[in-house]
């Protein structure tokens, strides 16, 4: 049988110009990968490289969200009326529940303003916010992060708190030109100072290693914490505005031998399946600048210079 020309790969493997061997390439690429890991985790040098790749991938990520959205949209289309009716009923019930509080807010705000003026306090800070949409959940199983569709071009800065209607979600940890990476509260590295609304006791909540909820660390064995307590942001960190709901205490395990209580929390904002979020400006940007030196000291120094 004579095979026609072009049906077999006729280019012979090159004898001499084979380039570097696979082992050389392996050594080089592995060394480069290890170098990048160290540069990324220890020295934080890789942000420019990340920015370039993330900006290049951004349009692709946005396009690839379309089929997933279409799939969700199709089920919405079929179940649309049913869903709309149940959601409307739930929204009306919530509205009725909130009506009394909402009508008192204006009056309380005015009263608060007058009282603050009376006591000569600084007016409370109003926080600038920006709505954003979750682009995708990072599929990395070793962390809890989501990517939102606003970036440095829209004025998002690193460390901005992110929340939705239920409470705090997390904090912006990396900013790219067209997107930003939000580390959720359930991530192992997340930490947030909280205030127990029942006892007004301050503490710090951390993410856990398994990603199941959060925990209060360094609580004394006899600390006044009960299951069902609601924790809010305390505002002492200069990042989160005070009074946003964070989590609810699930269980308190008082061990005799350790001296510390193991307090498990459940974040009030669900970490999965969120779509719309609100990015707040970090409070530290609005704080008055730190005074450099007391005025008398400056005067003294000037006098000293003249001499």
């Amino acid at each position, binding site marked *: 049988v004579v095979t026609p020309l072009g049906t*077999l*790969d006729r280019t012979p493997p090159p004898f001499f110009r084979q380039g570097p061997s696979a082992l050389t390439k392996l050594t080089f690429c592995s060394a480069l990968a290890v*170098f990048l*890991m160290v540069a990324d985790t220890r020295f934080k040098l890789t942000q420019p490289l990340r920015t370039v790749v993330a900006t290049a991938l951004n349009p692709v990520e946005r396009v690839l969200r379309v089929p997933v959205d279409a799939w969700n949209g199709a089920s919405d289309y079929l179940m649309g009326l049913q869903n709309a009716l149940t959601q409307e009923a739930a929204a009306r019930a919530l509205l009725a529940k909130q009506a009394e509080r909402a009508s008192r807010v204006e009056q309380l705000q005015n009263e608060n303003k007058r009282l603050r003026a009376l006591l000569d306090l600084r007016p409370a800070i109003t926080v600038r916010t920006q709505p954003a949409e979750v682009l995708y959940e990072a599929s*990395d*199983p070793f962390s*809890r992060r989501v990517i939102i569709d606003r970036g440095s071009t829209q004025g998002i800065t690193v460390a901005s708190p992110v929340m939705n209607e239920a409470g705090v979600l997390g904090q912006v940890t990396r900013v790219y030109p067209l997107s930003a990476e939000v580390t959720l509260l359930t991530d*192992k590295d997340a930490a947030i100072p909280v205030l127990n609304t029942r006892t007004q006791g301050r503490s710090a909540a951390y993410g856990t290693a398994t990603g199941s909820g959060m925990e209060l660390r360094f609580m004394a064995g006899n600390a006044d914490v009960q299951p069902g307590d609601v924790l809010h942001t305390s505002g002492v960190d200069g990042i989160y505005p005070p009074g946003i709901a964070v989590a609810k205490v699930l269980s308190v395990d008082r061990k005799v031998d350790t001296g510390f209580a193991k307090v498990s929390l459940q974040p009030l904002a669900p970490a999965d399946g969120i779509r719309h979020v609100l990015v707040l400006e970090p409070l530290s940007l609005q704080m008055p600048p730190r005074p450099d030196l007391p005025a008398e000291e400056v005067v003294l120094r000037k006098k000293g210079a003249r001499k």
Partner: protein
Amino acid sequence: MIMPRSSDQLLLPVNPLFVWFTLLLAFAMNLVPLGRNPAMPDFMALVLVFWNVHQPRRVGVGLAFVFGLMMDVHDGAVLGQHALAYTLLSFFAITIHRRLRWFTVPSQAVQILPLFGAAHAVSFIVRMVAGGMLPGWELLLAPVFEALLWPPVTWMLLAPQRRAPDPDENRPL
């Protein structure tokens, strides 16, 4: 030239554009936002290993490294984590490619399973050293799914090379 016994048919030369198209398609499949699922098979690793085995002169270690770097940025993982895993995966796939093609496709899947397992283990070790969270036991299923996908992927990606060399009206493809 001794041909591997499993290939009962002489294959047409591969189209480089098809190789690139499948690599980019696999990358896009990894980018589809399906949420966080540790058991999700890594399509990029699968297609990379496939071309490493079947076209080691076209798809090598360097390309695997670049795709790994892009996966790292997309995942928000430690930069270099996927790059290292894909580099090692690619090197060992090229190392065993001559032996692997003598086996039938299901036995190839069995032989490729430890390779995928090792790649996930590299990622796991890197993240544990860097201080990541525990991913859950579902991560163990990912290499199994990747090995199970080996036969269908082999069938699909070799299909263009199995076309008839002289198409006529009875054999349009």
